């Protein structure tokens, strides 16, 4: 059975959050700056959901979602905390049904999860009348490009995560799997 080193994962997610707010905005060209809006702690939440179970993913998503909301507080707090906690739990639930963890499965989870997260956040803002954009426009303009970028981020993070953040307690099971 595989477990995660949670301390290291949390530190890594904090570093990723700093990169996301302070470095990535410079790397994205102006014309794309409101289309590519990656959420790297969310990618880490998906890894936690896949490797450490649904309860930890729920708490991880809740904590980092709340942190992101607080850091970008303009209209309201809670949209990302809600979305990331819920999706962490759901994806964790889904992942616990499967015994193997392939790259394709993890990336699928990240892609699917980020699409759902962005839609969920959109509907929360729509509910509170803070946005009046149409669903089709949001999907085309922001959700899909961000989904692709986050899947690539997941691909880039996959090897470091497996090497440094995951300890395999029983090597025999790993060999059998």
């Amino acid at each position: 059975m595989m477990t995660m080193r949670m301390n290291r994962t949390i530190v890594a997610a904090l570093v990723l959050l700093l990169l996301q707010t302070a470095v990535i905005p410079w790397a994205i060209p102006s014309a794309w700056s409101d289309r590519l809006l990656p959420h790297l702690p969310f990618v880490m939440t998906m890894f936690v959901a896949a490797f450490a179970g649904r309860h930890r993913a729920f708490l991880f998503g809740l904590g980092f979602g709340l942190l992101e909301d607080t850091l970008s507080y303009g209209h309201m707090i809670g949209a990302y905390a809600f979305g990331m906690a819920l999706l962490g739990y759901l994806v964790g639930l889904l992942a616990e049904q499967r015994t193997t963890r392939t790259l394709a499965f993890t990336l699928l989870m990240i892609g699917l999860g980020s699409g759902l997260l962005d839609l969920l956040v959109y509907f929360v803002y729509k509910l509170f009348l803070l946005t009046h954009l149409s669903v089709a426009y949001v999907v085309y303009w922001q959700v899909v490009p961000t989904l692709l970028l986050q899947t690539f981020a997941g691909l880039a993070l996959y090897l470091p995560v497996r090497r440094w953040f995951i300890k395999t307690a029983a090597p025999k099971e790993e060999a059998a799997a």
Partner: protein
Amino acid sequence: MIGLILFIAVMGFTLRRSGSTWPERFVNDAFGSVQGVLYKPVGAVASFFRDLGRLSDVYKENEELRKTVARYTQDRIHYNTIESDNKRYQELLHFTETQKQFYNYKYLFAQVIASSTNPYDKTIKILLGSRDGIKERMAVITADGLVGLVSSVSEFTSTVMPITEMDPSSPDVISISATISGKEDEAFGIIEYNKESKSLLMSKIDENAKVEKGDTVVTAGKGNLLPKGLIIGTVLSNQVGDYGLTHTATIQPAAKFDHLYEVMVVVAPDPDKP
């Protein structure tokens, strides 16, 4: 289910309120210090490469600047005469001290330290806080024009909401009143932003006001919220608005809202202060 109810309560509670609690301020300041360390050097490197690309334009730009400086010197002389005249008239008309201080704005330079990646809350963060005298709803500008308003303040950092986030029909709206530079007494409108067409609009203009392409839109300073005369943009077109009674102008914003490096916070004199 309880979680869902709790979240809706939190979201509703944080929707329209002023001031922030100590955990928020602590988190903002703790992250702000590290973000500041990262954002500045990365920005320096990024703008260095952008400047390299624009090296060929420097000569042309220089010539333009020379012309502007020449014009500026002339205007300055003109301005000095008008200012001294104005002071004399104020004395003659017995202006109170408050009225005299009314347009005496201070500008505080602030370094941008982070920008958010939330598509519906695209705020930026600056390295000036309540310690430096920043208060909520102060105007934030760049050399080009109005960027936004301060939305929340902590001890060392504050969050700025750009004018592109100000939707006139959202529940926590702050309306910006605007006018046309040089036609202050006839043209008046409200600034709003249409995210779908990515255009800034000035709505509810009187149909008799002559608003033409190329006019400069500035803040009107009505209601004491925003200082007067901050540049918002230039008019691209003016057409009849939704109900046919008023006009709506499309505006090209003067300031850009991303890849910001340094901004200025406008501190207006407090009218309540003795």
